[in-house]
């Protein structure tokens, strides 16, 4: 199974990629969040600068990068979430 998802970049990650968002076609699903991050890194190598200081948000739910399995459907939003600094 695979899905087409929209990746959203914020803050430092938008600066590193030069993008606010992009479409990823044919993302395998289910996939571990670690593998999803690795896939994003292959697409956007400059994101490596955030390694260890980033989480993802899948359908507006935070997911730490690691073994957790995520199931993706076409049209899902995956956000790259650098350290928060609101307030």
């Amino acid at each position, binding site marked *: 199974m695979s899905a087409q998802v929209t990746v959203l970049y914020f803050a430092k990650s938008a600066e590193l990629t030069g993008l606010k968002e992009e479409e990823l076609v044919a993302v395998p699903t289910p996939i571990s969040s670690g593998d999803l991050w690795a896939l994003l890194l292959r697409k956007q190598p400059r994101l490596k600068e955030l390694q260890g*200081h980033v989480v993802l*948000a899948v359908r*507006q739910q935070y997911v730490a990068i690691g073994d957790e399995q995520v199931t993706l459907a076409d049209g899902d939003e995956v956000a790259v*979430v*650098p350290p*928060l*600094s*609101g*307030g």
Partner: protein
Amino acid sequence: MTEEPRDVFRLSRDWLSVQEVVDSVSSPSCGAVSVFLGTTREDRVDGRKVIGLEYEAYEPMVQSQFSRLCADMRSRWPALMHVCIHHRLGWVKVGEASVVMAISSPHRHAGQQAVQYCISQLKASVPIWKKEVYDTQEASWKENPE
């Protein structure tokens, strides 16, 4: 005649009015409104002067995280009446408020505790980012300590 509790989070590109935030939580059943404003300090970082902040947000997720936070607060402090947060987006000059929050409650302790919790949790869990902009034109993304 029971009043429905309201949870309001507004992202705003304009100056924040504390009066407006306070008015929006007013309730005839409440004797207390607890309020917090976060502003940008005049600061020097490595000899550079901070002139302002640039905010961005994952807007729909701000709303969903705020709803979760309010549900959490209402389970901790069932007496809370209304919760309202206005948060800036875009450019915020040094000295201006970037966030104003107000919570109404029948008695003051619940609201005061909830405001402290709310600002901590907002910083830790609501997807908003700021970069500090310096008089040298440089900028750097910030990270909340909590």
